[in-house]
């Protein structure tokens, strides 16, 4: 027991890595295996039909090889998607219109703008709700209702309406993104700003602290963990909003446009590559916020 505890630090690092990486790798491997099986199964119908139309008989090996190498597969094989991603990311100049990096950048900029607007709106509304009783009672139910409006479904219309008001380009997309991302921030911040317990508030009262002092020195710091948790949800939501906003913008740029045009031409590999690029972007953004969170909370002494 004590021997294991006093093992060399390098060894411990390795053990930790193994404990973390091994399960992820195993699950990943399982998913890839299932994916390959799925690809063979789902693309099989097409390969059989083609063989029947061409009046040929396929060996099993032939059959499997063909299912994994279709131009327009129902489900592209993992290596096809990987190749598509590689081609899109590394195989182009990043300013090229075929570059996923370029499209990713277009999407990212609108996402960040929308995320900024949404976060600001969410925080301001939350501050209002916590400090004003009339706002508390009137805004919250309608904020919930606002999220049930299928904004994604009317996004095309929204874009047109904004265009008619002279707002075009990045902003309409960003506003759709903001619409989706303000809600998690609002909910999280209301909860966070209300999280100081009665005793902490009473202490402030006993010191006769002003409302502003109460806000800056008590409510805001104690809401930080909630804020960051919601920011992670919000940035993913903002990305989805941007992508949807890009769909009706038709054949212009962005990962959404890439998804759409892939879909329009039945280019499943292109769809999946754009999809993975989007997911990777989302994961990176969430991780970035996680990193900022750790940093801030550590400085605040809230991370242990």
């Amino acid at each position, binding site marked *: 027991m004590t021997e294991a505890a006093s093992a060399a630090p390098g060894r411990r690092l390795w053990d930790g890595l193994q404990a973390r990486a091994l399960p992820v790798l195993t699950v990943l491997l399982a998913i890839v295996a299932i994916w390959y099986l799925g690809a063979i199964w789902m693309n099989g119908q097409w390969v059989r039909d083609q063989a029947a139309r061409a009046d040929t008989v396929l060996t099993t090996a032939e059959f499997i090889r063909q299912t994994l190498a279709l131009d327009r597969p129902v489900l592209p094989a993992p290596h096809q998607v990987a190749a598509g991603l590689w081609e899109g990311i590394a195989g182009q100049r990043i300013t090229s219109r075929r570059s996923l990096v370029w499209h990713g950048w277009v999407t990212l900029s609108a996402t960040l703008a929308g995320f900024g607007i949404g976060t600001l709106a969410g925080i301001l509304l939350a501050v209002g709700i916590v400090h004003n009783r009339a706002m508390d009672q009137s805004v919250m139910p309608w904020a919930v209702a606002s999220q049930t409006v299928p904004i994604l479904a009317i996004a095309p219309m929204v874009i*047109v309406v904004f265009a008619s008001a002279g707002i075009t380009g990045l902003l309409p997309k960003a506003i759709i993104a903001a619409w989706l991302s303000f809600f998690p921030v609002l909910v999280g911040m209301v909860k966070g700003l209300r999280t100081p317990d009665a005793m902490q508030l009473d202490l402030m009262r006993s010191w006769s602290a002003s409302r502003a002092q109460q806000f800056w020195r008590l409510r805001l710091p104690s809401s930080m963990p909630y804020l960051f948790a919601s920011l992670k949800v919000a940035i993913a939501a903002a990305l989805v909003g941007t992508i949807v906003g890009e769909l009706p913008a038709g054949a212009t740029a962005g990962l959404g446009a890439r998804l759409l045009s892939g879909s329009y031409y*039945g280019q499943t590999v292109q769809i999946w590559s754009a999809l993975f690029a989007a997911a990777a972007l989302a994961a990176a953004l969430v991780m970035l916020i996680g990193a900022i969170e750790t940093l801030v909370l550590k400085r605040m002494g809230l991370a242990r």
Partner: protein
Amino acid sequence: DQLTLQLKWVTQAQFAGYYVAKDKGFYEEEGLDVTILPGGPDIAPTQVLAGGGADVIVEWMPAALAAREKGLPLVNIAQPFKSSGMMLTCLKESGITDPTSDFAGKTLGVWFSGNEYPFLSWMSHLGLSTEGGAEGVTVLKQGFNVDPLLQKQAACISTMTYNEYWQVIDAGIAPEDLVTFKYEDQGVATLEDGLYVLESTLEDSEKVTDLVRFVRASMKGWKYAEENPEEAAEIVLENDETGAQTLEHQVRMAQEIAKLTAGTDGTLDEADYQRTVDTLLAGGSDPVISAAPDGAFTHMITERAFD
């Protein structure tokens, strides 16, 4: 002068004339600065026009006339497309050979968002209900691509001669395995891809001059594209921001489009117009438009452009 054109669909050779006119400087020669807005699956150009987002739109006549009846005063100012490229493409194995007898009980893919009118009036010509059942046809809202046919979710899908049909072919289905029914051949063709503006625009004489110059330059572009399909396709490709189009597909599209724009200088043929209106009016219980429209087109622009 500034002018904004809203296309009906994504950047592709279907709109080659406009891109050529812009790229070759035809608009510039006329003193125009034209912005071309690509469309998309759920963009309704009529709505964009109504909202002031564009000065001119490319739209199909059924949708334009329907919008006119809804109170949006659209006017056709030019008609670069002489013939319709619409058709229904079926798998031969579905056993459909004759529309009048074989559609009943089948599932058909149709585009919506204002593009369903030609199909609906064809069906009412055939006396088929679109509510499903053994006597009618089951209608699917077809998405952006030709998958429903490849996946055999529908017996037939809507295709354009210049686009979706070739996607089916490219997907690996031989032409012999397909049966197609062109709207032209069925006598239910309606006019596609015309240029429309709001009535109020025509009251502004300065705008009218701009439109005249615009139509003139656009038609120059169309004729150039007709003669040089390869070059036109390349120009389209350069303007495609998604980077999803392929040259091969666009060249073929440009060649097919040339067949549709052939035989017109952009002036609307009144006989074609009348046929479209008649087709739409003959809709049985559910016609697309209820009365013959009045003032839905003007020859003023094309006359001044080409005199």
